[in-house]
């Protein structure tokens, strides 16, 4: 792997020039091949071990989703969906959910705390919890509903793409643990190339719409999926078809400063607060419509 500089390319609520003496470093990516994932949760276990967090022992909610959702103590979960289209074959879709490491991260743009969210030169989006003020704006800014506030310290947590491992030339813990090769890691270019081979294989097995999920609405992502049904991302437990950052976040972002430029910011803030409290109604409705397959 090429050198993985931890140079910070972007920093929340910060306008100073980022360091760039090393120039461009290669972008990295994790590729999640849904067609190879058996839902064994080894990656989930590895994430707990490497990052040293432990959720509580919960209960079974009548599905295989355990724990049932992302949490400050659960940075990745497998989402199981039983998909049986009218007249079609039953499929058990299993999607590893977690931060997508957006090239254009809504979380970072929405964050008002300087340096609580950073993006490294290699594309990884990381939360630096010591700067987090616990406002939860990142949650609202995220088109994938990823960050979670901890009930213990009130700060936001999510997948780091194992930035500490990547920085020293190791693959993320989940990648190392995956027994089937459903998870692969490398430069984004290599991962796109790898995905092309997988898509050709899926095409030959009758998945004519197999595709790479690297949504443009967030500038592409550093976590990508190979989707057998590439035309229907929403069947994979509500993976958004066309994710984007709410325009309010962009406006808000435009005025976000270490100290708020109050006069200019007021209107934007009003809109943003509405967005934060009421949520992106439009998107939600669409999600609800698409959510016709129960989670299993």
């Amino acid at each position, binding site marked *: 792997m090429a050198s993985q500089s931890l140079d910070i390319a972007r920093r929340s609520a910060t306008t100073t020039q980022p360091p760039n003496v090393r120039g461009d470093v290669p972008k990295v990516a994790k590729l999640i091949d849904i067609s190879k994932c058996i839902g064994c*949760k080894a990656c989930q276990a590895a994430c707990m071990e490497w990052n040293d967090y432990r959720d509580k022992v919960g209960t079974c909610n009548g599905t295989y989703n355990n724990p049932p959702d992302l949490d400050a103590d659960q940075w990745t979960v497998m989402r199981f969906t039983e998909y049986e289209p009218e007249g079609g074959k039953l499929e*058990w879709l299993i999607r590893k959910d977690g931060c997508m490491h957006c090239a254009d991260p809504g979380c970072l743009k929405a964050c008002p705390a300087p340096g609580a969210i950073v993006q490294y030169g290699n594309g990884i989006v990381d939360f630096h919890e010591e700067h987090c003020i616990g406002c939860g704006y990142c949650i609202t800014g995220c088109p994938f509903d990823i960050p979670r506030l901890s009930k213990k310290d009130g700060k936001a947590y999510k997948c780091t793409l194992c930035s500490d491992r990547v920085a020293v030339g190791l693959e993320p813990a989940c990648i190392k643990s995956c027994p089937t090769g459903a998870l692969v890691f490398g430069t984004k270019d290599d991962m796109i190339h790898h995905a092309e081979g997988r898509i050709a294989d899926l095409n030959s097995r009758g998945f004519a719409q197999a595709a790479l999920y690297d949504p443009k609405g967030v500038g592409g992502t550093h976590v990508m999926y190979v989707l057998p049904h590439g035309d229907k991302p929403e069947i994979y437990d509500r993976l958004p078809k066309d994710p984007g950052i709410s325009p309010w976040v962009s406006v808000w972002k435009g005025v976000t400063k270490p100290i708020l430029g109050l006069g200019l910011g007021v209107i934007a803030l009003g809109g943003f607060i509405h967005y934060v409290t009421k949520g992106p109604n439009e998107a939600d409705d669409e999600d609800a419509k698409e959510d016709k397959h129960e989670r299993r």
Partner: protein
Amino acid sequence: MTNHWVDIKNANLVLIMGGNAAEAHPCGFKWVTEAKAHKGAQLIVIDPRFNRSAAMADYYAPIRTGTDIAFLGGVIHYLLSHDKINHEYVKAYTNAGYLVNSAYGFEDGLFTGYEPAKRAYDKSTWSYVKGPDGYVEVDATMTDPRCVMNLMKAHYARYTPEVVSNICGTPQDQFLHVCEMIAETSAPTKTLTIMYALGWTQHTVGTQMIRTAAMVQLLLGNIGMAGGGVNALRGHSNIQGLTDLGLMSNLLPGYMTLPMEQETDFQKYLEVRALKPLRPGQLSYWQNYPKFHVSLMKAWYGDAATKDNDYAFDYLPKLDKIYDILQVFELMHQGKMNGYFCQGFNPLASFPNKAKIGGALAKLKYLVVIDPLATETSEFWQNFGPYNDVDPTKIQTEVFRLPSTCFAEENGSLVNSSRWLQWHYQGADPPGEAKADPEIVAGIFLKLRELYRKEGGAFPDPIVNLTWNYAIPAAPHPEELAREYNGRALADLTDPADPTKVVLKAGQQLDSFAQLKDDGSTACGCWIFSGAWTEKGNIMARRDTADPSGLGETLGWAFAWPANRRILYNRASCDPAGKPWDPRRDIIHWNGSKWVGFDVPDFKPDSAPAQDMGPFIMQPEGVARFFTLDKVIDGPFPEHYEPFETPISTNPLHPKVVSNPAARVFKDDLEAFGTAKDFPYAATTYRLTEHFHFWTKHAKINAILQPEQFVEIGEELAKEKGLKAGDQVMVRSNRGFLKAVAVVTKRIKPLTVNGKTVHTVGVPIHWGFKGVAKNGYITNTLTPYVGDANVQTPEFKSFLVDIEKA
């Protein structure tokens, strides 16, 4: 496995049936994804549930639990009637042309010789016709109506697609689609690999299910081929090693057997095991039995095993019957067994009918539990509310718990499904007072020996004369034990071709079992492991991944028994002339003067093809058997019998003989079987990826990933019963009940069987009342106390329950 894990990647078609590799063997399953990604392989999954493996399958077909012989028998019928077999292979490498005793027959569900009072067969008619030369008569044209091929055709002619579908509940078109996919691999350049596990073994017809699969593979010519074979996926990391070392009541190491009560004559004991060839020119490798056996006795008894005392033959126990676990707990339950040592397993959770197991343990005077964990068994006498509702004041059993180390806390070798002995190193110190198993056993042995030495007793010799030459007698080292099972020369060994040449000096480690002698000049603790620790050192610790063939034949990685051979019967990967059936699967071939290649030939290395030696060298015929003579007790051809608890209360093939007539059933257990009238649903038990047996509920991360006991039911049954996902339900069998969360799923569909709708209830096994996961009921509260007719593996996979909202 006939083949090995890595070799799965060479298959064109993978059939997972009687197992759920993605769920229970996720790391091995990667070779299926390799085959799919790089060889364009197709994956078929056949299972009552659309499981994790099915999620990866190119084709899934449902089947009713316990009916796999009907399905595979139907495949045999399809292959024979559509002429989709490898003719040359079948003719040269199987007993298809062998002539069978004219008195043999099969009628109305029974083979000839059935004795109802004994629930057993007189197997004398299940035999070959022998010619005046003493060899079996063979009709190479296979036209004789008494040849195996024609008897097999007749036997499976009944297994039409209609019949299969009626018994299995598999829709006919899906069954036929699977047949077509399988049939394609009858081409010599295509292979099918079959992966199975406890979904085949845990039935009263388990042995025969596996045999049916082997028959399919023989018809297709897929045994001995890279990417072929019948591959057992072993569960515990060393359960393969357990069978290899003979830790069964009737076995000795290396698949040798203990004598039965009437076998008091040493020479006769050897003779019936050292099988003479049934056809001219055959190797019949078991002829070497005396060498393996004498060397074992020399390893155990050293100088006390002499020619004059028949190498201590009298020291060996002589069995009146087989003491499998069901027999043992039956005796305990009857109060005929007073003490029990339970090392590394958890019978209260792992054996069927928990009420009976708990009741049996309560009749013991003492119970010794050797385990790294505080198992349910070790606390069977404690009250854990509804999960273990017993009255401790009524139980007098004295329990000794001896904490042992787990695999990560010791050096040693584990044998995996691939038959590889892989050495591993201690990764952590054991906690508290935990001791390694050899140390615990040594402590008990040394004390016993001291008592026998002091007090004598009826027959102290087997104990006081046992070889115990370890550097620290109270703590034998894994390295010492490994060297012992490899074996060593006790006198100088010379080259058979040149007796003046000394190959090994006395005291040196053997190179392989080929050097074993029946004259007491070699010692070997387990002949099939010979070669694992030679004068070159610890062969099991090798980690060379070099694979010159590209087929995963990494001969420098660890040690594979036997003789570091990776694919068994690999002579059959070549045609009779010694040329590979498929040039891309060239693992060995005849080079004009000997057998060479990327694997170790499973054959006499210099036997030219013209000599007509068969590739199945362990068989006295030299060929594989469709008709299996008297080697299994419930019939020379596999036949479909219903589980003892059947949801259809009949056997559509022969209503008078419903379940396996040769399976042993104890009286109390017969009475504890339920019927479909009271318990209408077919139930099956299984494992989940997130857990390993009853161990990982003691581990926090696993408990987080799968915290609470659940049962799986289909949407249709849920609707009928008014249940929804997340409800608490009660599942009852005639032996007890459990309560758990309902997982309601599209992945279990009702099947139409013999005109009746059959629902399946799935019950994972992992919960209990010890550990950090949420407490749960022991699943084996529900399961029936009856085992496979041949090897007594309990019928955990097919029984009857009722279900209701709790």
